[in-house]
């Protein structure tokens, strides 16, 4: 039989207040640590997909390989659900985790909408992914949204590493886009974003291990 008196001792006022503070701090750390895990997952997927699309596009010359991007959220959501099922600490939600979930869901919807509108309207009359410049025109929009989502996540979690990573991704990505001009190599902007996301995930994991 288990001892029900363990951890039921009466405490001093100072001990009680310390316990409350520690518990609340642990909750915040837990949510940030959890965020780091998903940064790692999505960063790895973004890096792999950007390199895959680049290689296929470059070697075959067919821009249609960009449709592979739509498989990324599908795979990511399945993997995320599997991770969530495994992790006991992922079974409690609060306002911060709900806001973060909402930020990234909104990012996903806006990015897919931007990609779809670009495919449908920019290429009309000239064949799907005809001119390279048109196919790449969605890049600055998506990279800005990406940086913004990452930055707001950092604000919600009160974590400077994530805030800075958001600025690096958004502003760094835009700089590369406008400096380099329209080439297939612009796919590396997403590789760069994926690597920044993985690095952020690792730093957060290290900070809150």
């Amino acid at each position, binding site marked *: 039989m288990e001892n029900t008196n363990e*951890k*039921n001792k009466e405490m001093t006022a100072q001990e009680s207040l310390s316990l409350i503070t520690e518990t609340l701090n642990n909750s915040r750390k837990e949510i940030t640590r959890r965020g780091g895990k998903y940064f790692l997952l999505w960063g790895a997927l973004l890096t792999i997909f950007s390199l895959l699309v680049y290689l296929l596009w470059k070697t075959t010359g067919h821009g249609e390989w960009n449709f592979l991007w739509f498989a990324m959220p599908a795979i990511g959501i399945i993997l995320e659900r599997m991770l969530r099922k495994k992790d006991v600490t992922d*079974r*409690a939600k*609060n306002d911060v985790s709900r806001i973060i979930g909402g930020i990234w869901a909104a990012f996903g919807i806006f990015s897919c909408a931007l990609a779809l509108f670009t495919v449908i309207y920019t290429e009309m009359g000239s064949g799907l992914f005809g001119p390279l410049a048109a196919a790449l025109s969605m890049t600055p929009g998506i990279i800005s949204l990406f940086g913004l989502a990452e930055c707001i996540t950092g604000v919600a979690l009160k974590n400077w590493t994530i805030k800075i990573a958001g600025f690096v991704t958004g502003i760094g990505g835009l700089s590369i886009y406008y400096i380099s001009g329209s080439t297939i190599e612009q796919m590396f902007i997403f590789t760069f974003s994926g690597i920044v996301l993985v690095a952020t995930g690792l730093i957060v994991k290290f900070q809150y291990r």
Partner: protein
Amino acid sequence: MFPKLDPLLHSELRLALVSILAGVEEADFSYLKKQTGATAGNLSVQIDKLAAAGYITVEKGFKGKMPCTTCRITPAGTEAFASYVKALKKYLAAGK
């Protein structure tokens, strides 16, 4: 005159449980067990005590085929927790 500390909350595990639940919308048994480091038996007993006082609600259900116990803090629990923290602060302020 010092306010009386709520005896139900003035216990390490029950206070930890209410503190966790005050910061989340809901939490299941496995999560509470991991966060508090308590044994399943002890945790069950303390959850029942808090539920009997109306400080938390306990919902027993299933997640897939696995049984799942979900706990939520009630408005009465939130109020009791806030009063407890206020009382603690008075004790500590008087001690300075």
